């Protein structure tokens, strides 16, 4: 009996931990000292600097714009999209891992909070990799992702690159990374 109680208690504990910590595990939120546009532009500039690792900008989306067109107000949100053939290639090559194209391109969200501050949201690529058995690739993606959101304040604000969304089956450009 005591084993059953112990198992149930452990299960409950795991569920509680999963429920309370899932957001921290799956997504990373990092504050930015810059405004939404400048943060997105600095991320783009960092991505461009990592071209040696196969990274290309593949799009910049503004979901708030579509919402505004529908008549509603939402604070600014920009989605910076990038892809690297170095990582996407091996995943797309194998049939079993082709489903992970759903994660492509790599998206970083930059948004304004209710208090006026700016946050950067990234998916926890490292954990994703472990969950889906593609840890080797995703660990590298995670490392690059961290480099994307590391800013050098001594550099001037770069211009926002208004790339059209590219990669994937939507008629993407060949140089869009994936």
């Amino acid at each position: 009996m005591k084993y059953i109680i112990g198992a149930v208690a452990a299960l409950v504990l795991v569920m509680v931990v999963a429920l309370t910590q899932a957001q921290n595990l799956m997504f990373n939120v990092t504050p930015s000292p810059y405004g939404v546009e400048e943060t997105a532009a600095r991320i783009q500039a960092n991505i461009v600097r990592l071209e040696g690792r196969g990274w290309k900008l593949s799009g910049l989306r503004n979901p708030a714009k579509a919402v505004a067109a529908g008549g509603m107000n939402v604070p600014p949100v920009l989605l910076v999209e990038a892809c690297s053939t170095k990582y996407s290639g091996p995943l797309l090559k194998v049939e079993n891992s082709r489903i992970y194209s759903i994660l492509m391109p790599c998206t970083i969200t930059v948004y304004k909070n209710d208090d006026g501050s700016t946050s950067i949201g990234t998916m926890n690529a490292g954990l994703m990799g472990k969950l889906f058995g593609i840890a080797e690739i995703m660990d590298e993606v995670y490392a690059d992702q961290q480099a994307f959101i590391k800013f050098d304040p001594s550099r001037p604000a770069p211009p926002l690159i208004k790339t059209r969304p590219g990669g994937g089956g939507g008629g993407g450009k060949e140089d869009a990374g994936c």
Partner: protein
Amino acid sequence: MNIPAKKIHRALLLIGCFLASSVSANVAVTEPAAAVAATTAPAVVVEATEAKKSTSTADHSKFDALKKNFKSGPEVTKACLTCHTEAAKQVHSTKHWTWEFLNPATKQKLGKKNIVNNFCTSVTSNQTFCSACHVGYGWKDDKFDFTSENNVDCVVCHDTTGKYKKLPGLSGHPNYKKMEWPPHSGKFREATDLKTIAQSVGKTSRASCGTCHFYGGGGDAVKHGDLDSSLKQPKKYLDVHMDAKGLDFSCGKCHLSDSHEVTGSRYAPTAVDANGVLVRGTKGDRNPTTCVACHGNTPHPPGTAAVEKLNSHTDKIACQTCHIPAFARGKKATKMTWDWSTAGKLDDKGHRIQKRGSDGNVIYDSKKGDFTFERYVIPEYVWFNGEVKFTLFGDKVDTENVVKINEFQGSAGDPDSRIWPVKTFRGKQPYDVGNETLGVFHTAGKDDAAYWGNYDWDKAMEWGMKAMGVEYSGNMTFVETEMSWPITHMVAPKDDALECDQCHKENGRLQNIGGVYMPGTNNTPIIDLLGFAAALMALIGVLIHGGIRYYMSKRG
């Protein structure tokens, strides 16, 4: 990090999707192109300007007086006055003409002519440029004839073509000859077609008022934050009243005018209007631009307790506080700071420098210094009773603290005060150390004293202070300043009004508002404990009471 429960659910859903996908071969492939196009329209869109059929009873193109090839603006005015004989006299008594306003409460002499702000700072000595937004022709110095009827510019407010433009540097005139604009840009503006414009005059509109009011402070969206060119043809999300496909209010719909005097001045705003709906035509001096003037004192239709609660908020909160959740929500970012102290840096060849930020706005200009811009700005909030006290030229300035160019009066204990949203604009601007007053300097002109020509603060200050009738001390520095602007345009749809928990929470929007208790903004553990204990005792009491009654009923 504080992520709400919805995000947790989404994360779990995502994991679920992945797990489900990994065991399923039947993955639907969809074409994302349409969705892509929908969310990535170009950032800059040329605003559509829908031509409206005139409902006027007069076709001005049929008037003989307007069938002339006018050589200048005053000639057009002269023609206008042949029919509208009293119009110029009426304009002469308005703030739009005098740029002066005597505040009846504070007795301060205000108006553009007298204020020193923390944008371009002062009109004095710079009339040639500033008068591009004056409803007159020829104001370039203090010799301007304010009694001349022909100097009134009728067209700047009544143009309907959108082609009439008064350029800075022309003393309130449009260009009568083809000229390069902006200077040294290689772009040219054709001579203004005064005949066509004069024959097309009509009622004022958002576009005609916006010719100046959208561009205050030297550019689109710069000054006010709640007024910019996005309001020419706004969508509903930006302003429910001005929604071009909805109510389509012109400025004059609220800012009623009589004899050319336009109501709703920011120099004497109405912070509280307790008089209910103002029936149009009612005589008196009430301000018709208030929300209450149309929506009444209980603007939320009575019914549920929650709605009653909203109505009860109106004794502390201005309508704008909830219904304008952010300003600069259109396409344009508004200027938030301006640091004149960094102006004057030139490149290696001694040429002017301009730097742009990530959003394309100029963030440094040798002529003006450093700026910051922001879009979708969360307002600051202040108690406000309608009285604004200005720091005027000549007032002794305390440089130890941030100088308040204007200060909104009011407090929690004042029954005539409400919590208002404001844009607070912060700057660093010239200060005359010897005279202990805000500095007035000569900004632009073809002389050798203009700062934008010589980058010499002393020369510019000497000229500017002299124009104010004061001798420059010869010693200047920069002081930090603040200036606030009430936020009252860009009213969002009601569904986008602030939610309760945007204020009633720790570090909520009104965290800097003092003198009033707001539930939910903080907690005291002992009070929480007492509350929970009381609730628990009540529950226990109910259970005991119910138990006894149940027991007694069983006993018969």
